[in-house]
């Protein structure tokens, strides 16, 4: 029972971490390696708003989501636009942005037990003999809501449909009047905002640690790669596979094996089926 409950909560938290990365990469092919850094920065920004400026929690959270989203948007117009199409330079540039953010935050000392976000609802409930704190349930709720909203967004709204059009065939999409740069910038903004949402849902479970900036990126990459980097159901499948295998490994072996499993999963899936278990669009682009 414990394995099932913690498996589910762990899977949903992985899905939350990965969803923004998958969204950006799936739409604009932009590998946002600063995803983990945005997650971290969003959490710390909220902490500053909350504790040093005394802004109410909900407002602080919304403000940081908007701020990071705007940062992602301007990052696209300011930097990524110049490197568009050079996939490798995009990776290098976003990785460089991530390093700058994470290392500056590390240098400023935003790490440790004094940097904790309060949970949305305190206390815990008993589910089938296992005590689960309310924050985990809230997190599962946020994750599920987000997945539903994103599913509806990409299938029912005009912007969402234009996102998918760009993802499927950029030239045709341009031909019917969709602006690829605008779409890409918007997708980067949304992906960055979603990174902060994930951070706000997950961070109250523990203390803020700058090292997470790199770990979150790895988890997002792992989930995305297992499931297929551009598909939403794939990301969900990937996070459940990874989430349960992490919990199983931690229960029956040792906690350190979690990271090894994650990293090994990335390498093995890329070697065997690089488009992921459910990916289909980019099969010819990624290997020869």
């Amino acid at each position, binding site marked *: 029972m414990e394995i099932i409950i913690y498996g589910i909560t762990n899977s949903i938290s992985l899905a939350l971490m990965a969803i923004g990365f998958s969204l950006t990469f799936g739409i604009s092919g932009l*590998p946002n390696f600063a995803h983990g850094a945005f997650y971290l920065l969003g959490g710390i920004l909220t902490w500053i708003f909350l504790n040093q400026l005394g802004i109410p929690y909900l407002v602080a959270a919304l403000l940081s989501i908007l701020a990071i989203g705007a940062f992602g948007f301007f990052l696209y117009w300011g*930097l990524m636009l*110049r*490197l568009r199409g050079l*996939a*490798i*330079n995009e*990776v*290098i*540039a976003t*990785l*460089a*942005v*991530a*390093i*700058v953010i994470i*290392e*500056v935050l*590390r*240098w400023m000392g935003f790490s440790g037990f004094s940097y904790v976000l309060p949970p949305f609802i305190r206390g815990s409930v008993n589910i089938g003999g296992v005590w689960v704190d309310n924050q985990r349930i809230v997190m599962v709720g946020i994750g599920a809501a987000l997945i539903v909203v994103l599913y509806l967004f990409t299938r029912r709204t005009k912007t969402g449909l234009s996102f998918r059009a760009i993802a499927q065939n950029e030239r045709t999409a341009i031909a019917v009047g969709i602006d690829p740069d605008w779409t890409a910038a918007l997708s980067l903004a949304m992906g960055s905002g979603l990174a902060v949402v994930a951070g706000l849902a997950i961070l109250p479970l523990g203390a803020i640690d700058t090292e997470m900036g*790199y770990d979150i990126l*790895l988890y997002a*990459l792992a989930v995305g*790669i297992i499931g297929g980097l551009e598909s939403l159901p794939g990301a969900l499948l990937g996070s459940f596979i990874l989430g349960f295998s992490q919990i199983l490994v931690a229960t029956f072996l*040792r906690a*350190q*094996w979690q*990271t*090894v499993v994650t*990293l*090994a999963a*990335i*390498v093995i899936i*890329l*070697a065997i089926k*690089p488009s992921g278990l459910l990916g289909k669009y980019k099969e010819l*682009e*990624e*290997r*020869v």
Partner: protein
Amino acid sequence: MAEGEKYRKERLDRGIKARSDTIYVLASSRDLLYLLMPRALPVALLILLPILLHGTYWEKVLFYSCIFGLLALSWDFMNSVGLVSLGQALFFGAGAYFAGALNHYLGWPIFLTIPAGTIGGALICTALLVPVVRLRGVYFSIVTLILPLLFAHLIETLEILGGTHGLLSLSAYPSGWIAIYLAVGALLLALFGFRKILDEDFGMILRGIRDDDRVVMAAGVNIYWYKAQSIFLAAAVGSFAGALMTHYYQFVGRSVLALDYTILPLAAVVLGGPGSFAGAALGSFILVPLSEALRAMGGLRMALYGLILIGALAALPEGIFHYLQRRYHQFERMVKV
């Protein structure tokens, strides 16, 4: 400037460039110098610097510059086959651990561990990367980014090869001269060797793979075999740097697999200019001394590399070397449109 008149920049080859490019019987010593200087001057400087800097702190910086230069060259070589690595630390760490373990567990002397570390490390890295040479672009880069992290975690989790403590008290070099001239010699060898390789027929296939791998495949060339060979060459250079550094520190630990050994060479190549090898070396000879001068910044140095990467990518994507090369061979003037 009158209203409505427009000017544009025009670039022309300098006369001396045109002359020395096409006329092989050199007319004057000036032409000869023009051709030789850009090659001979840095070589002479590199050979002289260890003597000039002997006994000072900057001797160490020179050594580090050569080590990172080797890693940057190995990155640039893989890049010229279209394989973009985000894990030079893998090559570095493989060589460092291979040499360190042979020295620590089997007691092999330095003159055996360094060649063994070079070949062994390169073989390990090639074996690890061959299953994924089919991957293109970002996907290959992700694998190379993950592998060093995976091994660092494996070493920690399994507590093999010294675990978190690393392997201590490895043999030192009998004299500082040997270490520094090995580093300088290897750098020059790798620099001119890689340039030579890319000029040969072999290199033409490599460049073809980078430009359009499917065309090369259609021409009946087994591109995976060529990719594997170039990974081996690049990994050998990286592993040699690792093995050299291991005995310099007399220590090998998980830090050799850290992100530093990936980011600094990458920043060096991007700053110096990819594709020419000279740019990679130049970049590391700018960045390493710069980062030593900024040692007081401590943890912020990584952030600084990041900023340099962003700045170089956005402002001077061709790199310093190509810029200098252009100014050396060409002049610019404004002409009326």
